[in-house]
């Protein structure tokens, strides 16, 4: 059964399998394991960005198309649904109208982009998409009477999906991090710590929306996994490895490439819709900024290009780092301030400097682990497997000799 769910594309590394299961369980039971609004928000974003990054990987990793306009499609979805809800009132029809309209727009624009990618060289394409995405952001900023401009717009989600919608019963959650922290810092009062770790989980529309997102993210991810392992995906890989040869074999690379751009863009649009509904507030900065496009690129590359699982790992690691690495660095910086000599470099470790270290990490990883976390884990697993087999063969030989 796992074979058909994962389309035969297994993680192929024990560590990776463990990591993926941990992420899956963490997200599935998240609201009951991690208390607090920051954690809740982070989990929602991870689900959304798994879709966005995985669809980006379809282009970057599977066809080597570098586009900076991916977030433009994300923005189509986010603004499409927000504007529909604004115009038609907070109901589900509006959501579907917004989704449909933005998907239609995405298809048209993605087709145009796909055709453009044939007219210009790959490197040109990257630059041109950058400029086009920028133009769209300017447009959103300028059309403030419908988009709210730089101030952004509130997304008036239907009541059923907001915090105001309450079901009567509260469930009980168990704060894993809090408990572990308590056990480590205060091992003598285990009972007390355990009692404090329980917290109430309110059953409201926010929780419902989170689970809608989670289920959609899981479903779309499995869909993409199926896509890349289908004959279609094999052609994409062939094009990536050698476009001339693929063309010579009779594949119209034109169609395949355009199809990838269209599919990836539609998925990004869905991601944008979910983003708007989860965060309930969108601004050009949070949906369209160049920096965000770079972040998506980072998530994809750090996780591992061309693996899809990489997008899960990349999005999770990056978003957790974005939200929690800051605290850690802040702690390091405070500690260094207090030390002699070290306080000169404390500035390098401030809470706001997390991006500096992520940038360094990123550059190093492109040099030394170009296949990202997933690629590296798989390489290690394959090496271990080879060593094990080599050993088995060697042992077999010695056994033969002695026998």
């Amino acid at each position: 059964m796992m074979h058909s769910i994962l389309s035969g594309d297994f993680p192929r590394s024990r560590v990776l399998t463990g990591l993926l299961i941990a992420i899956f369980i963490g997200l599935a039971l998240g609201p009951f394991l991690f208390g607090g609004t920051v954690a809740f928000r982070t989990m929602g974003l991870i689900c959304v960005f798994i879709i966005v990054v995985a669809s980006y990987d379809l282009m970057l990793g599977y066809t080597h198309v570098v586009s900076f306009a991916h977030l433009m499609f994300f923005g189509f979805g986010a603004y499409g649904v927000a504007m529909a809800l604004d115009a038609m009132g907070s109901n589900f029809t509006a959501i579907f109208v917004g989704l449909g309209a933005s998907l239609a727009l995405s298809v048209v624009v993605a087709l145009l982009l796909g055709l453009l990618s044939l007219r210009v060289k790959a490197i040109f394409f990257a630059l041109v998409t950058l400029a086009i995405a920028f133009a769209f952001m300017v447009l959103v900023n300028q059309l403030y009477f419908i988009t709210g401009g730089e101030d952004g717009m509130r997304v008036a989600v239907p009541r059923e999906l907001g915090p105001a919608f309450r079901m009567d019963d509260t469930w009980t959650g168990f704060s894993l991090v809090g408990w572990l922290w308590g056990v480590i810092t205060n091992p003598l009062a285990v009972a007390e710590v355990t009692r404090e770790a329980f917290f109430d989980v309110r059953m409201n529309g926010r929780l419902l929306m989170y689970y809608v997102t989670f289920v959609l993210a899981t479903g779309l991810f499995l869909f993409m996994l199926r896509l890349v392992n289908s004959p279609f995906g094999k052609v994409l890989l062939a094009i990536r490895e050698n476009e001339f040869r693929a063309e010579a074999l009779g594949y119209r690379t034109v169609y395949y490439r355009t199809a990838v751009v269209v599919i990836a863009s539609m998925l990004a649009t869905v991601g944008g819709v979910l983003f708007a509904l989860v965060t309930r507030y969108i601004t050009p900065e949070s949906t369209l900024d160049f920096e965000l496009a770079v972040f998506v690129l980072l998530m994809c590359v750090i996780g591992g290009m061309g693996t899809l699982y990489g997008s899960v790992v990349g999005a999770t690691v990056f978003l957790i780092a974005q939200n929690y690495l800051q605290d850690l660095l802040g702690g390091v910086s405070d500690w260094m301030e207090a030390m002699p000599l070290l306080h000169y470099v404390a500035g390098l470790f401030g809470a706001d400097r997390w991006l500096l270290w992520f940038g360094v990490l990123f550059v190093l990883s492109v040099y030394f682990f170009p296949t990202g976390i997933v690629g590296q884990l798989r390489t290690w697993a394959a090496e271990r497997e080879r060593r094990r087999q080599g050993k088995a063969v060697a042992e077999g030989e010695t056994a033969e000799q002695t026998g």
Partner: protein
Amino acid sequence: MSANISTMNGSSGGLRQRFAAFRDGYPHFFVLGLMVGVMLLLALVPYRTVAGPWLQAGEEVPALLQLFRLGFTTWFTLTVSGMAMGLMIFIMSSGMTLTFGLMSVLNLGHGGFISFGAFCGATVVAYLSHWGGSGSLMLTTGVLILAFFYAMLITGALGIFFERVVIRPVYGDHLKQILVTIGGAIILMELIHVIWGPTDLPVPRPDLLRGAVIFHDGVPLIGGAAIEIYRLMAVVVGLILYALMQLTISRTKVGVLIRAGVESTEMVEVQGYRIRMLFLAVFVVGSALAGLGGAMWGMYEQIVNAHMGEHLMIMVIVVIITGGLGSITGCFYAAILVGLINLYVGYLEPRLAGIATVGLMVAVLMWRPQGLIPVLRH
């Protein structure tokens, strides 16, 4: 009679052909002429002539015709200001286009150098603000030279480091170049935060460069036009730099090597030259120019922040693509086009300026996929 007709046909056909030849042979002049010409038309045709019928009837003049309100003095001011902006962008862009032309290296971290240069320049100007405030021509020139020189020195040095450490390992791999240089840009930007702090830095422009030159009303056509002194300075500096670059490229051995390298790096090596050293030199000069452009831009905006390079990169990218990747001449004209379209469109409809910039690029690419002045590559 028949001969007469044929010559007439010939001459009119010849005119069309000559126009087509001009359009394809000098696409940069063609687009520039088109843009300036349209604006000149709007400026020179009196508003009353066009809008007369509506004005007499007391009706509202259609929006499109209202564009004819542009007067010649305004046109003049806009054109000079557009050139000033364009030339500053040219200074920033030239390095990036040459780097690509010579080694096919795409440095998306170029914006980081622009920001860094802006901060270096701002530091000098702020430190020597009493010189700038003195109103003395010599001290003002001193501040400018020191600020620009310091910005170029630091960004040039950073360029050496960047080329050696960040770019060298990923020659020939565009995908990795894009990734690594974006990473490098993030690091540069964060370093600015570490060194100068997270807040914007104001740049006190020297007193002599404040205010505007106002042409005397008696001057024909442009009487009453006001042009900021700083923009005039930017035009002068930009034109001098362009002339220097053109001289270097057309007259010196280094220039011959650069042009040869753009055609084929391999054959330059076969002649016994170490192209890597040449490339390093070009990269360093390009970085220094990005720094200079950033410093000039910072003083122009009178405020700098770490993200400015990132935002300017959009214009830089539009310029180098529109001009034709690798071509200095193309870069120069495309930069001026971008500057002009920003000012022109910004005047007519401020909200469209940014979009017009990208629209210019898309339009040129539709017409000529390789940009205005394509670079031949083997």
